[in-house]
């Protein structure tokens, strides 16, 4: 199980901020993204290669994902 988080425009697309997804672990961020886009209602509108974070750190799409990890989908950042 991984914990998914969606923010800002992505949260609006998906209709919620927190989802739990069950999938074989360990896996990769890319695989999580693929599963989310095909299975989560509204998530087809997410980019195929979104900005992501695992456990509060920016990661690339080939980063590993373990059981219990928090995987966040981040729209283009606009802080400052």
């Amino acid at each position: 199980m991984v914990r998914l988080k969606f923010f800002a425009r992505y949260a609006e697309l998906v209709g919620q901020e927190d989802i739990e997804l069950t999938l074989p672990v360990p896996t990769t961020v890319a695989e999580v993204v693929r599963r989310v886009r095909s299975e989560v209602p509204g998530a087809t509108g997410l980019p195929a290669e979104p900005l992501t974070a695992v456990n509060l750190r920016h990661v690339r799409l080939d980063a590993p994902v373990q059981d219990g990890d928090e995987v966040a989908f981040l729209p283009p950042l606009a802080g400052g």
Partner: protein
Amino acid sequence: MGHTTRDAISPAALLAEVASPGCGASCLFLGTVRDGPEDGGVTGIEYTAYAAMAGAELDRILAEAQRQWPSVRVALRHRLGLVSTEEASIGIAAAAPHRADAFAACRYLIEEVKRRVPIWKKELRADGSVLWVDPQGHPAVLGPE
């Protein structure tokens, strides 16, 4: 200490935080909500964050600046929630014995904040419309530090 706040940012408080008898130079940066002729009647911006990660990333960025410029003292506040036109959304102060380091650290901090901190903004316009802002015009791809 939290680096995000829902209260107005005080330049004087940020400057006081970094002041020290050994520091002869202070550089302060303020990012303010703009409504220029090309901005289309912006009345304010609503800032939202991935709060836990924003805090962690700001801590990492400040620690990096401290490592890169050991003599520099830094302070930073980022507003969340509604920020009206001409109010500051971010304030960064850096003080150093010499000015080159104060400028460099201050500039580093704002660039890294914009590049890495998970904060988003919705523009509220005078005509009632609301718009998520994408500064790059496309999804940025960031790797680990």
